[in-house]
């Protein structure tokens, strides 16, 4: 892995963000809207519920962490799509740039933009709605690692799907987080789900995070094994997504799709 080509991918994202407020705005705007919307919903539920659940911590905290995972995926996919939109594949892939360097650059760009989102999220949710992620203690770091890892895996997978099925398949990838959220048990405990959905949930690292988060906030003992499983799954899924991206890239080189990408198919 060479530093300069990875830095090039990062620098390109910086140039684009710096030159276009329209690109920078979603990093702040959607996060802000989510915080406000779910903050008030949580506050309302706190006022009417006698269940003794701290909705601000459990619901708002979960929504925001899930939102962060989605932002990581979207940040990576958007960085990839910049090359689709500017028809830059030929210039990129006919250069010495290695696929590992390209994907690493996209991942770092995504992490950088999502950290901005995380900062805005905390700056708004903590003082306005009294959300305290500190209640999660050191576990928060583990939870964030899992969510970042899963977001990266989804982002690589989504980019591979766009590379495989052409620019028009972009619409397919945006709803992926929404499709997965029922399985990830963001809003409710896993036990609510039917058995088949629980089976899917066990393959998704965020479900362990949200279960763990609820356990910690409700004062139950923290189980290390589920988080370890989640970390392992996230690492495995990043590796699988990377393998799929390389496979799709090689197919595109073999069929000629990469050289004529705007045509969407070579048939």
């Amino acid at each position: 892995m060479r530093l300069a080509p990875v830095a090039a991918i990062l620098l390109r994202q910086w140039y684009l963000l710096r030159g276009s407020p329209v690109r920078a705005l979603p990093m702040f705007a959607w996060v802000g809207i989510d915080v406000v919307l779910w903050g008030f919903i949580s506050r309302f539920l706190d006022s009417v519920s006698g269940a003794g659940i701290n909705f601000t911590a459990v619901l708002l905290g979960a929504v925001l962490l899930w939102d962060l995972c989605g932002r990581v995926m979207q940040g990576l996919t958007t960085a990839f799509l910049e090359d689709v939109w500017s028809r830059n594949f030929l210039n990129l892939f006919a250069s010495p740039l290695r696929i590992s360097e390209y994907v690493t650059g996209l991942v770092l760009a995504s992490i950088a933009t999502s950290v901005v989102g995380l900062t805005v999220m905390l700056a708004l949710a903590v003082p306005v709605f009294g959300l305290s992620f500190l209640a999660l203690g050191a576990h928060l770091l583990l939870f964030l690692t899992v969510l970042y890892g899963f977001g990266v895996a989804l982002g690589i997978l989504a980019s591979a799907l766009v590379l495989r099925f052409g620019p028009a398949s972009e619409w397919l990838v945006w709803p992926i987080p929404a499709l997965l959220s029922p399985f990830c048990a963001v809003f409710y405990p896993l036990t609510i789900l039917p058995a088949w959905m629980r089976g899917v949930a066990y393959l998704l690292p965020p479900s362990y995070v949200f279960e763990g988060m609820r356990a910690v906030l409700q004062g139950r003992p923290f189980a290390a094994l589920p988080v370890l499983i989640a970390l392992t799954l996230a690492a495995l899924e990043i590796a699988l997504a990377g393998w799929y991206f390389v496979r799709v890239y090689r197919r595109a080189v073999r069929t000629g799709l990469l050289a004529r990408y705007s045509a969407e198919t070579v048939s």
Partner: protein
Amino acid sequence: MTARSEHHPADSATAAALRVRGLRKSYGEVLAVNGVSFEVAAGEILGLLGPNGAGKTTIINTILAVLRPDSGSIRIGDLDVSRQRSLALARTNFAAVYASLPGNLTVVQNLTFFGLIYRVRFLRRRIEELLRQFQLEALRNTKCGVLSSGELTRVALAKSLLNRPRLLLLDEPTASLDPAAARDTRSTIRTLVHDTHCGVLWTSHNMYEVEEVCDRVLFLSHGQVLVTGDPRSLPREHGARNLEELFIQLAREPLAHPAEHLA
């Protein structure tokens, strides 16, 4: 016609900049390139000619490793493109009308981006040299998307020279340029070849340009090599008045006996 370089590729004792052997590529039932072999010597400009659909772009794409051939080998210098892709492409660069640079980056941003990808040493200095060479200084902070096609071509050429390539692939590099700019570009490339000894593979449909700039040409039709030789003597050898007439003759002929044309 501008003065041609004194250097002749045959004088060079250095290894071939590009060596293509038995290249074959089909898209489903369509055979785009059928057993093509050729070399570009260091310091040589080889013109790759042929009608639309002859296989020129397919050959360029396979050399650039964005298209995998069905069979055959491609070596850039002593590096096998299929096995040492990144190293081989670090010595190569290209400019093509169908591969414009991202329009949402400025000229300098594009050159910086690609300079990092090609790991160009002393990048800022190199960019300044190229901005001067291609008269792009006034456009340095202009987004490429608002440049004229001629200006875009100059930026693409500047990008193609960033890494001082040993092999340069130019797919119709002067297609969008006015005659004066085209002449300047040809002169720049010839000077570059003279000074750096890099090999150039040049495609063009402008036969005047080909005659002026290429040391040797290779005619392709239906993915096969029909004729190769000196663009200044080939027309006479084949009973044509000039290169354009020879091009039209070859492009219209059926492919039944390509071997008969081989010099």
